[in-house]
């Protein structure tokens, strides 16, 4: 197992904030919009640098999506910022008609995704957003795994023409990817090569997959770990190549098991390479109040759950 270490923990939303500032410096067409959550989205640095390119919309997410769509007409590259719940479910029809169907170059940037939003509870913890967004034709869906990857992804989506959903989170987590990485949309990252089982993880679950991989190695199981940061378009070649080698797969995501990354992998494998698969994901449930760590444990999203799923799926593959 390749060794991963970290010297600090940071939130992915701060990676977004840093990336937004960088993207703004690189391209004068980049503009930002926020629905009364500037501090939570870490947009302050961009606003300080480019006050005339920032639009405070107020608590009116539908209007924010529409204004963003309009700003693209005239060549702007708008980045909208609010919580994942208010970025997707609340404004699904606005995104569908004014952004996706209209092929507008809007970057929907969503913080506080999943259970790790924590104490605010289920009204704010969306676990359905990946599904909602990936079903929209033409939408790119990205869920980066740490501060550095989120920063790189934010810069990369400014250079990509087309609607993007960028999903990140609230809690501080280990920073373990390269600070100078080049983010390639739609390209899987091989975290660790192995032969016994493929573990595919996205977002906050990637570090947990690394922890699980280390424990599995101690148990004599050689896990291949792949980071799928771009859920759509999916790097099908990378997934098929790995599962062809290992014969089984565990998918890990901070999302409902219905509609998420796991289902995208299952759809691919069922048609190209039917293989045993286990899902580490929320089991069709809403969340609740609690600390991020407590919630990840209660809803079965810890490294121990990945280890158990790996053991189970290997057994199924051997039958």
């Amino acid at each position: 197992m390749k060794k991963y270490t970290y010297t600090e923990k940071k939130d992915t939303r701060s990676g977004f904030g840093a990336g937004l500032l960088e993207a703004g410096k690189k391209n004068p067409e980049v503009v930002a919009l926020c629905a009364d959550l500037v501090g939570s989205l870490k947009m302050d640095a961009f606003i300080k640098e480019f006050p005339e390119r920032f639009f405070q919309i107020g608590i009116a997410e539908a209007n924010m999506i529409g204004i963003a769509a309009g700003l693209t007409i005239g060549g702007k590259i708008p980045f909208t910022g609010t919580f994942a719940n208010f970025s997707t479910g609340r404004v699904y029809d606005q995104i569908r008609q004014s952004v996706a169907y209209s092929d507008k170059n809007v970057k929907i940037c969503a913080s506080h995704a999943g259970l790790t939003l924590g104490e605010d509870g289920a009204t704010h913890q969306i676990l359905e957003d990946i599904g909602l967004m990936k079903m929209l034709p033409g939408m790119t869906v990205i869920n980066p795994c740490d501060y550095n990857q989120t920063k790189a992804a934010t810069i990369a989506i400014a250079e990509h023409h087309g609607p993007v959903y960028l999903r990140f989170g609230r809690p501080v987590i280990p920073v373990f990817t390269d600070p100078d990485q080049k983010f390639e949309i739609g390209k899987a990252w091989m975290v660790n090569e192995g032969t016994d089982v493929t573990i595919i993880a996205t977002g906050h679950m990637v570090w947990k997959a690394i922890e699980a991989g280390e424990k599995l190695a101690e148990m004599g199981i050689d896990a291949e770990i792949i980071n799928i940061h771009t859920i759509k378009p999916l790097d099908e070649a990378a997934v098929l190549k790995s599962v062809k080698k290992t014969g089984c797969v565990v998918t890990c995501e901070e999302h409902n098991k219905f509609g998420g990354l796991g289902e995208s992998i299952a759809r691919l494998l069922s048609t190209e390479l039917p293989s045993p698969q286990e899902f580490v994901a929320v089991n069709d449930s809403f969340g609740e109040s609690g600390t991020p760590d407590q919630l990840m444990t209660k809803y079965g999203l810890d490294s121990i759950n990945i280890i158990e799923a790996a053991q189970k799926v290997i057994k199924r593959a051997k039958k």
Partner: protein
Amino acid sequence: MKHTIKELEDIASQVRRDIVRMVHGCQSGHPGGSLGCADFFTALYFEVMNHSTDFTMDGKGEDLFFLSNGHISPVFYSVLARSGYFDVSELATFRKLNSRLQGHPTTHEGLPGIRIASGSLGQGMSVAIGAALAKKLNKDHSVVYSLHGDGELQEGQNWEAIMYAPFNKVDNLISSVDYNGQQIDGPTEKVLSLENLQAKFEAFGWHVINSDGNDMDSIVKALHYAKSLLGKGKPILNLMSTQMGAGVDFMMGSHKWHGVAPNDEQLALALAQLPSTLKDY
């Protein structure tokens, strides 16, 4: 004036012929609101707007128009074709398989003149505001226009936009409301009354003007007057009284022709009331 009022009225007559023929041709679509707005669209595209039929999505340096109540697509398509955005013969494909003239306007099929999809109601004012903000950033002094149904104002997103625009001094925007008092289920005052729209917009900080949307002289004057009010810190709202079905006597004064196509006999009756001034497609 680029055209006399009589010339504009003649164009509007042809637009009305196009509308009833298009809706008859596919036996679906929305003739009522389309007919009611034929004069407004004609005034906008043939007289008021500075626009190019050499279509670019960004429309830099030209005036832009956004249709929020997308179901009145027949009038939009007719005026775009009659202005030269695409050949009028394409109007015959309206709502048919593989057409660029979808039931509701879309950018998806690449029809020149369309910059946003609309149909799901209540979204157009936000988009128009965004386009107006982009023009300000680009130091582009042209104007953004939008049209909204009155019943459509029951959608909450409008009021987010109506609140945003004056507070942020979006004063390069002229929005019009097709104030015909009708919606699918009946008169707006019975379905969900709009009450005093002028007072509502004014309370939100708009400069409101009134016009008769079925009187060419009134609508042209109103739009020119609206332009003179731009750049003074307020968005402009043109509260435009219209008759659903205007120009075809048996379609007027009722919500019944909101979304119903005429049969052969009704088409003949309608066309008899609408002189052909340009060639039929």
